[in-house]
């Protein structure tokens, strides 16, 4: 059950690999990093480049989870 987590744009953190089964578990793990806490509150989440809005979304081995902080194009 290894998933890769990517942090985009201004979060400025290298990707990590984690053993987690759910977004719930992922959330608990990432919350331990104080520098990440504000980003968890305002970032959207994609799994394998699909936007996810349901915290119950299951994770499977090899999934790529992406954190997308607030955007401003143009």
């Amino acid at each position: 059950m290894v998933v890769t987590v990517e942090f985009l744009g201004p979060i400025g953190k290298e990707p990590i690999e984690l053993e987690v089964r759910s977004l719930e578990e992922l959330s608990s793990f990432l919350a331990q990093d104080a520098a990440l806490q504000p980003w968890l509150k305002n970032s959207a989440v994609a799994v394998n480049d699909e936007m996810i809005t349901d915290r119950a979304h299951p994770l499977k081995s090899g999934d790529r989870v992406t954190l997308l902080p607030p955007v401003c194009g143009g």
Partner: protein
Amino acid sequence: MLEIYDGPLEVPRILERWYGVQRRRNFGAFIPFVGTVRDEGGIEGLSFDLYRPLLERWFNHWQEQAAKRGAEVAMAHSCGDVPLFESSYIAAVSSPKRRVALELIDRFVEDFKANAPIWKYDLRGGERIYAADRSQPLCGSGLLG
């Protein structure tokens, strides 16, 4: 037509090329929106990161929506640094008649602002400072918070 460039856009060249394509396709209305970096707040320029896989998905969805109304969209965006008075963004709509193009350019640009996975930074004293005050959380943000 989704085009990503390192640094500023060569706006006249891009517009000339897109104009040539759309008029050969018998479109009567062509509306580009060009976004240029303004001299304000003492910045030296802007800089951009973008996440291409989701940007392409967002763009392709728009292309499908436009096609349902007989229209087409195009977009060019900069990656990296863009100095003052240079342009970082062009969005365009072409359609057979004006009304559809006028409606779509407004929605296309506003939806881009709300949903395109692009991050903006001010350039100040050679540093890249996240434009947090002008950024908007994407739909569904806070899922892990």
